[in-house]
C-alpha cells in the first residue's frame, strides 16, 4: 500500500493507483474532463492538475501515480489559478451557444464553467463564425468542431473500444482538430454509427442527428397513422434522463407517455425480437444441417448475429470476406418496420402509405440502418424515423408530461405482445440466450437445462464469453444433432468482436454461433442511451433487463401467441419464402478507410 496525504488528510491506496483515485477515496472532488472510466488515461485537458509539495510543476491527478510520502494539495492558490485559466482557455475555443445546445444542462464543460469561470471571459474568443462547419452528412452523427475541446475521448473510444478509428487527431498547434480520414465527411468514412463517441463527448461537439421535429409533424398530421416501437434497452435507461436512478425500469410509464404524446399505436420491438429468434434460430439449424448432414461447403459457420447495425457496418467495412457468416435476418427494428406496413396494415385495414413508423432505440446506428436502401421490402420506407432514448426524453419533457405521476399501461396489440426472450435482447448475451431457449426446444422438445431458463454462462459484462451446450434427446428430424456440443461465443464492443472473429478466422477457435453487439454491454450501453454511461451504470441496466425477463409470463420466443399468429396468418413458417422476402436482407462491401 502507498501512503500519502491529500490536503493534509492521510490516505492509503494500492500501488499503481492514481492521485485522483486516492482523492476519491477521501471524498475529495477533483474536476476532470478528458478522463473517462472506459478509456485509457491521456492527461491532456489538465483540468485535474493538483500541487505536489516540493515539485515545480503541477501534476495531472488522473495520470500521475500516487507515490509514498506524497503531499498533495487540491485547492492551493497555484492550483486554483491554473484551473481557472484552463477552464477559461477551453471556453475560448468552444462555441458556447449553451441555450441552443443539445447538451445544455448535461455538459461537462458547462458544469466546470459554472464552478470556475464567472463574470467576463478572460480570453479572446477563438471561434470565427464564418469558419464554422458542421458535418451533418451522416445519418446518425452530427459533428460540430466549433464545440470540440480536443479531449480526445471520441478518438480513444473509436480506437480502443471499437477498433474503428473513424475519428483521429490531425494537425498540430492551433490547427489541431479531431478529424476523419483526409477530413472526409462522416458519411464517407469507416464510421459504424455506433454513437459511442457521442455518449463520451463532454460537450455538444458530437450529437445524434435528431428527428424529433419530423416525428412531431407526423403526429400532428391527421391523415397519418403513427405507430411506435420501443426497443428492449430503452425501458431500463429512459428513466435516467427523467430523474430516476440508473437501473430503474419504466416500461409501463413509457407506454403511457407515448400514448399521451400522441402516437396512434404503441407497440413493442420485443415482439419482433421474438420473431428474429424464430427466423435466426431456424437459420442456424438449417445451416447446421447443411454443414453436418449435406456436407455443404458453401454454407458458412459460425453464424454471426445481425441485430446490431454498428456490427454489420463494421464487417462491411473491415472484414467483407466474412459477410457470408452474417445471419441474413434483419434486425428486430427492421422486421417490425416491414410488418407494420404489411401485416399490421392489413389487419388494421390501413393504407400502408398512411402509416408512419417510428422507433425508439438505444442506438444511433439504427438511424443509418433505417435509411439503408435494402430496408424497403414493404414497398415503403419500412421505418420512417428513429429516435434515441435521449430524444424520447426530450419529447416527453416538451410535452409537459409529469413522468413520475404517470399510470402504467400495456402495449397495444397486435405486435405488442412479447416474451422475456425478447426483452433480454437488450443486454450482451441476450440474443444468444433467447436463441438457445428456442432452438434447444425445437430440437429436443425440452426446455434448456438451466434453472429458471437462465443461461448464466452467456450473461455478464466480460468482453468475450464462451459457452457450450450438449444437445441430448433430439427429436427424430434433428437426430443428426444428437450428442453435438453446441459451441457459442459472445462479444460486445467492436474491439472484443474483432478479437473474437480473429480467433475464428485464424482457426484458433471454432464455434457454431456467435453473438456480437457493437456497443459495450450490448444495447443497454448503446450510443443513443442517456449520458453518462459507464460500467456501473451498464451493470445496473443489465440487472434491470434480467429482472424484467424474470417478471414476464412468457420467457421463450416460440411461446409468444402473436408470433404464432403472425406465422399462421401471414408468414407461413420460419424462413418461408415470404419470410425471406420481408424479414431477410443482404449486405455489401464498403470502403476500408
Amino acid at each position, binding site marked *: 500500500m502507498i501512503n500519502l496525504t491529500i490536503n493534509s488528510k492521510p490516505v492509503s491506496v494500492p500501488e499503481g493507483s492514481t492521485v485522483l483515485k486516492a482523492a476519491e477515496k477521501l471524498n475529495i472532488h477533483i474536476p476532470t474532463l478528458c478522463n473517462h472510466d472506459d478509456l485509457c488515461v491521456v492527461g491532456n*485537458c489538465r483540468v485535474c*492538475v493538483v500541487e505536489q509539495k516540493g515539485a515545480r510543476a503541477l501534476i495531472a491527478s488522473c*495520470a500521475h*501515480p500516487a507515490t509514498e510520502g506524497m503531499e498533495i494539495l487540491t485547492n492551493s492558490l497555484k492550483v486554483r489559478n491554473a484551473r481557472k485559466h484552463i477552464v477559461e*482557455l477551453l471556453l*475560448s475555443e468552444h462555441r458556447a451557444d449553451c441555450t441552443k445546445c443539445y447538451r445544455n444542462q448535461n455538459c461537462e464543460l458547462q458544469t466546470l464553467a459554472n464552478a470556475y469561470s464567472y463574470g467576463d471571459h*478572460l*480570453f479572446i474568443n477563438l471561434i470565427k463564425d464564418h469558419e464554422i462547419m458542421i458535418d451533418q452528412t451522416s445519418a446518425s452523427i452530427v459533428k460540430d468542431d466549433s464545440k470540440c475541446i480536443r479531449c480526445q475521448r471520441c478518438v480513444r473510444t473509436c480506437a480502443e473500444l471499437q477498433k474503428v478509428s473513424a475519428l483521429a487527431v490531425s494537425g498540430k*498547434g492551433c490547427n489541431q482538430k479531431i478529424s476523419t480520414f483526409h477530413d472526409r465527411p462522416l458519411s464517407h468514412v469507416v464510421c459504424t454509427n455506433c454513437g459511442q463517441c457521442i455518449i463520451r463527448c463532454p460537450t455538444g461537439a458530437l450529437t445524434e442527428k435528431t428527428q424529433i421535429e419530423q416525428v412531431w409533424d407526423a403526429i400532428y398530421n391527421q391523415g397519418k397513422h403513427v405507430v411506435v416501437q420501443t426497443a428492449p434497452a430503452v425501458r431500463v435507461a429512459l428513466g435516467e434522463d427523467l430523474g430516476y436512478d440508473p437501473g430503474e425500469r419504466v416500461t409501463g410509464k413509457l407506454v403511457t407517455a407515448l400514448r399521451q404524446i400522441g402516437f396512434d399505436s404503441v407497440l413493442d420491438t420485443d415482439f419482433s425480437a421474438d420473431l428474429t429468434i424464430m427466423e435466426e434460430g431456424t437459420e442456424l439449424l438449417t445451416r447446421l444441417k447443411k454443414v453436418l448432414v449435406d456436407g455443404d461447403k458453401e454454407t458458412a459457420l459460425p453464424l454471426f448475429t445481425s441485430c446490431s447495425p454498428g456490427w454489420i457496418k463494421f464487417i462491411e467495412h473491415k472484414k467483407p470476406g466474412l459477410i457470408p457468416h452474417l445471419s441474413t435476418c434483419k434486425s428486430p427494428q427492421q422486421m417490425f418496420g416491414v410488418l407494420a406496413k404489411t401485416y399490421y396494415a392489413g389487419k388494421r385495414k390501413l393504407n400502408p402509405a398512411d402509416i408512419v413508423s417510428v422507433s425508439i432505440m438505444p442506438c444511433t446506428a439504427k438511424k443509418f440502418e433505417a435509411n439503408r436502401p435494402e430496408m424497403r421490402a414493404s414497398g415503403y420506407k419500412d421505418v420512417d424515423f428513429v429516435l434515441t432514448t435521449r430524444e424520447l426524453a426530450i419529447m416527453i419533457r416538451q410535452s409537459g408530461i409529469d413522468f413520475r405521476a404517470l399510470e402504467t399501461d400495456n402495449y397495444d396489440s397486435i405486435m405488442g405482445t412479447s416474451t422475456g426472450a425478447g426483452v433480454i435482447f437488450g443486454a450482451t448475451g441476450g440474443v444468444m440466450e433467447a436463441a438457445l431457449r428456442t432452438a434447444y426446444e425445437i430440437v429436443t422438445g425440452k426446455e434448456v437445462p438451466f434453472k429458471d431458463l437462465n443461461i448464466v454462462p452467456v450473461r455478464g459484462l466480460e468482453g468475450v464469453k464462451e459457452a457450450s451446450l450438449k444437445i441430448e434427446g433430439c427429436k427424430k428430424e434433428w437426430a443428426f444433432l444428437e450428442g453435438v456440443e453446441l459451441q457459442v461465443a459472445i462479444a460486445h464492443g467492436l474491439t472484443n468482436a474483432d478479437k473474437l472473429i480473429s480467433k475464428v478466422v485464424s482457426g484458433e477457435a471454432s464455434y457454431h454461433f456467435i453473438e456480437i453487439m457493437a456497443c459495450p454491454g450490448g444495447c443497454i450501453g448503446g450510443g443513443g442511451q442517456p449520458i453518462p454511461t459507464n460500467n456501473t451504470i451498464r451493470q445496473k441496466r443489465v440487472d434491470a433487463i434480467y429482472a424484467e425477463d424474470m417478471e414476464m409470463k412468457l420467457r421463450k420466443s416460440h411461446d409468444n401467441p402473436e408470433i404464432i399468429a403472425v406465422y399462421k396468418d401471414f408468414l407461413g413458417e420460419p424462413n418461408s419464402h415470404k419470410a425471406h422476402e420481408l424479414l431477410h436482407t443482404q449486405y455489401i462491401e464498403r470502403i476500408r478507410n
Partner: protein
Amino acid sequence: METKKLNKVDLIFEHVDPRVILTKAFKMSNDDIINEVIESGLKGRGGAGFPTGMKWKFAAGEKSKEKYIVCNADEGEPGTFKDREILDRVAYKVYSGMAIAGKAIGAKKGVVYLRAEYKFLIPQLMMELDGFHTLIKDIGYNFQIEYKLGSGAYICGEESALFESIEGYRGEPRNKPPYPTQNGLFGKPTVINNVETLVNIVIIVNYGSAKYKSHGTRFSTGAKVFSVSGDTPNPGIYELELGMSVLEFVNEFGDGDTKAVQVGGASGLCVPRKLFASTIIGFEGVPTGGSVKLFNSTRSMYNVLHNYLDFFNEESCGNCTPCRVGCQQLLLGVEAVKKGDMKSSYLNELAKLADTMKVASKCGLGQSVGNAFNSILENFREEIIY
C-alpha cells in the same frame, strides 16, 4: 557567483581514434563508466540539463532484456545548428558515445532520431555508420545503431514524443512518470541523450572526469558548442567553456549595439542589456541547448516575441489545453494589445497565463513558452505596447 572568462576550446571536434576510446571504455566496468560520467558533472546538452550520469544509473538499474540508447538529433530549437555540424564532422564520436552508453546500461541497440531537414546528411552518415559497425565488430563488441528520420514536427524533439514518433504514432508527449529510463522506446528502459552529450562522453572517457571538470563551473562543468546568430559580425559555431557572463559573450560576438540576447532559442530566456554582466550562461544562470541570438537596437522586440509566439502557435502538438490554447491566446493577445483592441493591462493577464502554462502544461514545450514571453515582456513592455 563564480564566472569564467570567455575561453574557446577544441574538444568536440578534435579528432580522436574511436578504436582507442572504445577499447578503453569497454575495459572499464559498467559501474566505473557510470561513476566517471556522474563524477564529471556532465548535464544534458539538449537544453534541459538533466545529469547524464544519473540518467544512465537509473536505466542501468532497470531489469530488462532489451534496452535502448536513443540519440536525439531532432535539432529543432530556433537558432540552433550545432548538432548538424557535429554529425557532419564527427559522427563517429556520436556513435562511440552511444556504444559506451549501451555498454554502461546494458543496451545492444541504438537509434538516431534525425531531424527531417537533415536528411541530406544521411548518405554520409550511413557510410560512417557502416565503418563504425565494422570497427565495433572488430573490437569484439555487439552494438547496432539505426537511423530514424523525423517528419518535421518540433514537438518530436521532446523525448517521449520522439519515442511515439519512432514507434510510428503521432508525435505527442507521454505522461511522466513513468520516465524513459523505466519505460521508454517500445516500453523498454531507454537512455535518450542529445548528440552533443554523447560526444562529451567520448571526451570524458578520453581525458577522465577530473580533467573534464577543469573546464566550466561547479554547476556547469565542461564546455559547450554554441550556435551564434542574429546581429553579430561573426555568426557560427563556437565551442566555449561554460560559465561566462552574457557580457563576456556580447563583447566577443556583439556588433557594439547589442540590446538583448536570447539564450536558449524560442523556449529560452531573453537577457536585456542591464542584466548582461550579472547573468551567467550555464545551468546556474541561463541554460541553453546551444542557441544564442543577439539583437541590436534596430530590432523591434515585439517582432521578436511575435515570431516566437507564431512558432509555438504552430509547433505546439495541441495535445494539452494550456499549450494548445495558451499559445494561441498569447499570440492573439499581444497582437490585440499592439493594435489597441485590448488595453495594455491585458498583458498582465497574459503574463499570468504564461505562468500557468509553465506549471500546468504536459511537457517541456508548453512549460517553456512562458520563458521567452515573460522575459521579453518584463524587459521590453513598452516595445510590445507601442
